């Protein structure tokens, strides 16, 4: 018994110490009037933003910016506890899946008045990006900083060995019945333990060495890097009133047949089973070990793929579908201001600066993400080219306007809690794609209950 009491005491001390450390964080009173605290989660972007903060201070000597970076998972829970304890950062990087809830709960500042007062030109951004930050209530909550789309990252040694040309890879077609030329390519790229390809006689689908197509998970409610484009080119939409979904369509046959086709690749042996795919560190690591020929992913992953030194990675366009074109999800980040900040003017000045071409040129030149300001794009393209990437497949859908938004809504967490297990069950063959109709009912109930 003494043991447990001792442990409790120790924990008490540890708690005291931890709170003392936490208390130092963001002491609003302790720092200068012009000092803004800014948070971001991507460590790869820290150097560029440090540079931005330097230039910002040179242009506005009355303001300084202190940047803090936390990994994606810590970031959001730290932010929420910051809201509650009133120690949140003045400005922070926002995500379309998260800010609607924060806006709904009055935690982020609407910037319409600032935008109007300073005549901010919203036309400098890539088409549609600025409007992504107008909430369901019609107010604007951020200025866009970057954007992303999806493509196929492929292992070029494997495609060459399979005799598949770059042209073939960039002109793939798809349909939910036989998967089009896309599925033919995936089949050819799949190799069993004895070296037989998916389209060769005797192919052993239970003993596969290299899978044609990789996937990280079942995609949950958005399928951003897994199924979103197949569903879109099959003529499906997430919801009525995109992106502010009021009624979702996960039970729609266009969607369920897409998912049915997708999981069919598991049965055929071109994709690992769901258990195998999930029982791994991540899909990029397996790709880097040469276990997948093709993995779809977003543009923010370019740096990670560049770090995979054992494979040579190239990019291919998404396929053309029944609706006669390619489509990609287009999502992006923005800088948002915490509603509880005591430094509104300084915070706005920083947000405005980050949304300007000056700042986005700095970001673009680092070649990590695509800047939101259209005129900064050439610099980013050049930086990516220098790193060996031809990023055209990411840009084409944006230029053509063939993009669809991330399905945002203030109940995203509740929707995810329903859709993730539901999609997991379908992909692990514990439920049929038709069962998604029930999950869809549940999602719509959540939305109507909170409307």
């Amino acid at each position, binding site marked *: 018994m003494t043991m447990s009491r001792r442990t409790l005491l120790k924990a008490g*001390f540890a708690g*005291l110490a931890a709170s003392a450390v936490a208390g130092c964080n963001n002491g609003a009173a302790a720092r200068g009037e012009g000092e803004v605290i800014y948070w971001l989660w991507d460590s790869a972007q820290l150097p560029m933003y440090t540079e931005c903060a330097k230039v910002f201070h040179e242009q506005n000597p009355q303001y300084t910016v202190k940047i803090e970076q936390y990994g994606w998972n810590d970031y959001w829970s730290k932010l929420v506890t910051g*809201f509650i304890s009133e120690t949140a950062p003045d400005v922070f990087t926002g995500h379309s899946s998260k800010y609607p809830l924060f806006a709904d*709960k009055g935690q982020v500042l609407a910037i319409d008045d600032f935008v109007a007062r300073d005549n901010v030109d919203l036309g400098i951004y890539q088409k549609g990006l600025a409007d992504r930050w107008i909430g369901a209530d019609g107010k604007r909550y951020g200025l866009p900083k970057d954007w992303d789309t999806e493509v196929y990252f492929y292992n070029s040694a494997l495609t060459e060995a399979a005799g598949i040309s770059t042209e073939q890879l960039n002109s793939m077609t798809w349909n939910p019945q036989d998967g089009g030329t896309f599925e033919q390519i995936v089949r050819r790229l799949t190799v069993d333990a004895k070296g037989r390809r998916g389209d060769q006689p005797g192919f052993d689908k239970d003993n596969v060495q290299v899978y044609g197509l990789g996937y990280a998970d079942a995609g949950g409610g958005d399928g951003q890097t897994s199924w979103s484009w197949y569903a879109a080119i099959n003529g499906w939409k997430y919801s009525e009133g995109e992106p502010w979904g009021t009624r979702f369509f996960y039970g729609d046959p266009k969607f369920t047949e897409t998912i049915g086709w997708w999981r069919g690749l598991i049965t055929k042996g071109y994709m690992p089973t769901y258990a195998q795919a*999930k*029982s791994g560190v991540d899909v990029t690591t397996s790709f880097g070990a040469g276990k997948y020929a093709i993995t779809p992913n977003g543009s923010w992953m370019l740096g990670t793929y560049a770090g995979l030194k054992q494979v040579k990675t190239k990019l291919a366009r998404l396929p053309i579908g029944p609706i006669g074109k390619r489509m990609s999800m287009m999502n992006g980040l923005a800088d948002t201001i915490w509603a509880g900040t005591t430094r509104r003017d300084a915070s706005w000045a920083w947000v405005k600066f980050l949304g300007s071409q000056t700042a986005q040129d700095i970001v673009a030149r680092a070649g990590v993400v695509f800047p939101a300001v259209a005129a900064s794009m050439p610099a980013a393209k050049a930086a990516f080219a220098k790193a060996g990437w031809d990023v055209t497949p990411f840009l084409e859908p944006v230029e053509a306007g063939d993009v669809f938004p991330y399905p945002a809504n203030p109940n995203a*967490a509740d929707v995810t809690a329903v859709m993730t*297990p539901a999609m997991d069950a379908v992909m*692990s063959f514990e439920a049929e794609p038709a069962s998604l109709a029930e999950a869809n009912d549940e999602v719509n109930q959540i939305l109507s209950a909170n409307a």
Partner: protein
Amino acid sequence: MTATTNAPPTSRRSHGEATALPRKRRSLGDLKVAMIFLAPATLGFVVFYIWPTLRGAYLSFTEYSLLQAPNFNGLANYERMVQDSLFWNALVVTVEYVVINIGVQTVLAVGIAMLMYRLTHSITVRAVVLLPYLVANVVVALVWYWMLDFQVGIVNQGLTWLGIDPVAFFGESQWAIPTIAGINVWRHMGYTALLVFAGLQMIPKYVYEAAEVDGSTEWKTFWRITLPLLRPVLVMVLVVTMIGSFQIFDTVAVTTAGGPINATRVIYYYIFERAFTRFDFGYASAMAMVLFAILAVVSLLQLRLLRAKESDLA
């Protein structure tokens, strides 16, 4: 019950009345110093344990989205819990984890402790046994996550060499909980073994000598003498490790995140999800209160059933 009073009546008699007073004073002086030493911990205990517990109890009767003031809603959260299949699933999954984790861990810990006790008293060996426990939970989880990776992990590589099909340790519903339980057994068994080892050292040598004289075998001695005399220590170890085991969270959080489907959505993870990703703090608090009640009952039962206060060494 056990005659272990340190101040035998004889000594009091010999000192007489006169020495009784300074004695009292000295003990009061101890009290003051003791209070000073205890104060920070007591403060910590009140601020970080008592107060949050009371507030949690209150919040369990409210609808509270964290970012807006709580709204009293009576027993609604508890009624909802009864209907919530995910809550029941979380309990079942957690119990499954605890049974595997505690069962395997206790048997292994007693085994290791016996080996250490019988074969070596080397400090180095004790330190090595304790090593996994010194590595942070999250680090242990991540290292095993890599090693057990289906496609690139070293364990499955080894299995393949042995001609066994690779196993999707974290991806297969029926494997996920045993895998996570196993990882934590690996981390904790050394620590538990040391506690048991300390218990073994408390068993007087003469009991063993007597057993030997009576011609008892090693096996019989273990079952008839070691284990019964170890009981008070084992009960303490079981209570402490079981409470810890029910609170399994970090390993799940950094590996499966509750999946595949709901196979590893243990109660703590479910509470965390409800509270911090879905901002359903009232409901999460209600579940936490139920977990608190369950743990209290389980611990009391353990202490009662295993007669923790009594030793067979009377």
